[in-house]
């Protein structure tokens, strides 16, 4: 099968909220394999979310293990993931396969605890920090129809946004 095509902004489908997975079957396993293939096909990509390939399910993959010397959990296959705890704030640069040729500075929680199901519906909890935590937050945003462009801040003035609006 050909590698799944990644939707690119301004495709309005990227702003759609994805639905929870309710059926944990062979088709889900097959989709995860295809999703991972699409992630690996994107140069330098360490994560992908189902809506990026036109499937509006709460499914994402994060794998930052290629980056040297950082804490990680290997290849995380996240089904119905939810961030249940966040700590710290840190700025970092992000880009996205769905937003080619642009990177921006985004403030994210330094560490997050993710409650998630696996491909068989089993629940797990992961404590992610730094780069991996950033990737997890970026991918879960996709499931809620948010792009990093919705969170980009001024690199020049080192500003943190006032919390007037919670995404």
């Amino acid at each position: 099968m050909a590698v799944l095509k990644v939707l690119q902004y301004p495709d309005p489908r990227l702003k759609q909220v994805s639905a929870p997975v309710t059926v944990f079957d062979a088709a889900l396993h097959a989709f995860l394999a295809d999703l991972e293939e699409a992630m690996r096909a994107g140069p330098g990509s360490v994560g992908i979310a189902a809506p990026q390939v036109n499937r509006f399910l709460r499914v994402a993959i994060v794998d930052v293990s290629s980056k040297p010397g950082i804490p990680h959990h290997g290849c995380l296959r996240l089904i119905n993931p939810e961030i249940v705890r966040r700590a710290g704030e840190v700025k970092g640069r992000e880009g996205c396969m769905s937003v080619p040729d642009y990177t921006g500075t985004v403030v994210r929680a330094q560490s997050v605890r993710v409650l998630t199901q696996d491909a068989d519906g089993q629940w797990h909890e992961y404590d992610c920090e730094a780069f991996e935590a950033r990737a997890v937050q970026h991918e879960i945003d996709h499931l809620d129809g948010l792009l990093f462009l919705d969170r980009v801040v001024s690199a020049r003035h080192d500003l943190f946004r006032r919390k007037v609006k919670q995404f």
Partner: protein
Amino acid sequence: MAGLTKRNEQWHMLTVVGADRPAIVAKLTEALFRGGCNLGEASMARLGGNFCMMLMVEGADAAALEKLVRPVTDALGLRLHLDPIHGELHRHVEPNVQVTVYGADRPGIVAQATTALAAAGFNILDLNTDVAGTAERPIYIMLIDGYVAEGVVAVERAIAPLRADGIEVSVTALDTMIG
């Protein structure tokens, strides 16, 4: 439409400098829009009370651009400068190192720091400086994003001698998360 790319486009760099006031950007870009021009990448900032604009413009030759913009800049008391450039969109270089330099203000900080960076093969992609503190005791602050093939270690080695002069220097690897 801003930034719509066509073949054989000729870009100009429009530079405008002058006393800051509201609506400079609005009036200039409105004139360019009405004249059928496209805008590309831009950087604009208020420096020392002056508004400074560097703006990629395409869709008109130098004479036509001048005719569109000059009435606006004259009316606003701004200096205008136009250069044809060899330029294209979608040619970003991703920075991989960030350097922060600060210290009590004195002549030569920028020259010393950037000479050391140049010797390490560091290409500056974005640089902002500020003079902060008080008029009696000013401090100089410089933030630089750049690309260097050898990475953070080479930059650290090149810039370390500045610390002996009482300048604070930090070098951080920038790792862009692509998701």
